[in-house]
């Protein structure tokens, strides 16, 4: 191949030829790496319109299914939609976040991660890119789900402030579960395995107060349902949307979400340094 560069050195060359002064790779400052990785994840996201469409269509389908199929059986008067919307929001957030595990895991199997790991970058910056973009996508999907819910009869009693608080809680929950899925993506041996682990987490909302009140569950299951992280988050959202009593759910939900973010971020950064080198 002919290169279009002009080299001033003659082709004849010895191994000991004096090298011209070489530049060192500059250290990058601030959050440049994180911003670059957000752009990267965003571009990847937009390149896959089918996945993007699924991320919105599937939650809406779930929502319609619960309202019209199960909802009619559980509460023939049609009031179930008011009960189920918070659960659907979390179910969809979990679904959307689980795709993060797959994209992180896919990233790990390609050589580009090795390149990043041989550059002076904050470990975890790549993950941050995936997580932030996933949070944005999930918040969009959440907005669409709520919009459709309003169309099919969801009648929240929330004030503007309640809505704001609700979105805050949802965003925090999405951030937590997305970070967790990103770490799972790092830990999994393949994108397929990552997908599988994600499936387990997606079942958590069913064993919570998302779809039926905890009181209706068998005695042995009830404590699990009451004390797993999803129930307080759902109760908090429900309280903001339809005015059910909040109790201590708000603080417990906040603690769970922050705890998960912290654990997943530390675990993820550790995994990234230690384990991302596999092929």
């Amino acid at each position: 191949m002919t290169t279009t560069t002009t080299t001033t050195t003659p082709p004849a060359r010895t191994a000991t030829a004096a090298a011209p002064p070489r530049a060192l790779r500059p250290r990058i400052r601030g959050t440049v790496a994180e911003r670059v990785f957000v752009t990267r994840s965003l571009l990847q996201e937009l390149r896959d319109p089918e996945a993007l469409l699924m991320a919105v269509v599937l939650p809406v389908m779930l929502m319609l299914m619960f309202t019209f199929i199960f909802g009619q059986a559980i509460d023939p008067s049609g009031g179930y939609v008011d009960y189920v919307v918070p659960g659907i929001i979390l179910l969809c957030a979990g679904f959307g976040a689980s795709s993060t595990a797959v994209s992180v895991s896919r990233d790990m199997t390609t050589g580009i991660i090795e390149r990043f790991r041989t550059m002076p970058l904050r470990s975890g910056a790549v993950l941050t890119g995936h997580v932030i973009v996933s949070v944005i996508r999930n918040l969009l999907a959440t907005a669409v789900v709520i919009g459709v819910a309003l169309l099919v009869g969801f009648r929240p009693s929330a004030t503007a402030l309640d809505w704001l608080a609700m979105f805050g809680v949802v965003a925090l929950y999405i951030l937590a579960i997305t970070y967790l899925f990103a770490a799972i993506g790092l830990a999994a041996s393949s994108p397929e395995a990552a997908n599988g682990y994600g499936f387990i987490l997606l079942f958590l909302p069913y064993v919570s107060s998302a779809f039926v009140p905890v009181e209706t569950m068998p005695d042995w299951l009830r404590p699990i349902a009451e004390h797993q992280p999803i129930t307080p988050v759902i109760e908090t959202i429900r309280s903001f949307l339809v005015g059910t009593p909040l109790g201590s759910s708000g603080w417990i939900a906040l603690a769970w979400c922050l705890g998960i973010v912290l654990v997943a971020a530390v675990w993820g950064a550790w995994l990234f340094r230690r384990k991302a080198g596999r092929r």
Partner: protein
Amino acid sequence: MELAIQARGLRKRYGSTEVLAGLDLAVPTGSIFALLGPNGAGKTTTIGILTTLVRADAGEATVVGADVRTAPGEVQRRIALTGQSAAVDGELTAIENLVMLGRLSGLDRRQARAKAAGLLARFELEGAAKRRVSTFSGGMRRRLDLSLSLVVDVPVLFLDEPTTGLDTRSRQELWAIIRSLADAGTTVFLTTQYLEEADRLADRIAVLDHGVIAAEGTAAELKARVGGEFVELRDADGDLLREIPTDGSVHALRGAIDELDRSELGAVPGARIGIRRPSLDDVFLAITAGGTPGRTAASAARSGELLETK
């Protein structure tokens, strides 16, 4: 001689497998250094240690004065790695890949775009600049991969089997690029399992076998290790009947031919004599065969130019 890469006594064990068993390296600044070895010899592990991806169990290594163990961040500022699996983002276009790497290497947007345009031109990828990399051919991916390593002119470039899986034309194109980089002063450390690649490209070659450097030197030095010309006898179908290594002197060649003439093989109808120079294959086989195959060991001894075997 100024050294870009220095390693002493590198050891690495994965479970019960000892991949590196005390590896020593000295790579002169501005040279092309080839680490040659069969699959599983520890080439990728060596690159991993030198590029801070893998931590050695024992031993020390420096890259342009920075210690891989105590100052990995400083090492990372001095190197670029083009790995075995193409280190490109298939979802992005060629230009997006280059701008991303430029930004991550500390260039601002404008500089990164300018650098990307220059590299695309240099690597003849302008026509494909806005195509997604997943649609690229193997040769194009490898060229982009290499160009990503060049967004900053770092002193040392690591190439892990840069031409594996490429067709002949793409391989030669890459060789030309790698050589031009070394001409411009970059130290190139590459691994390969192709003898021809090491022969054609490298200033110095180290043969890695069972986790240690079995031999090191220029291609000519390594060939001298095996000795001079081989005298071979082939039958009418061209199948090898016998091969005698020599030191290349007239006396030795005549002796070898006489020996073949006297043997009953010389009487095979249509048998023909040929003389060939030793190839790097001969060296490689001699060194990595594990034992000491008669002819090569004998010829190496006769050549009197044994390189130090560690």
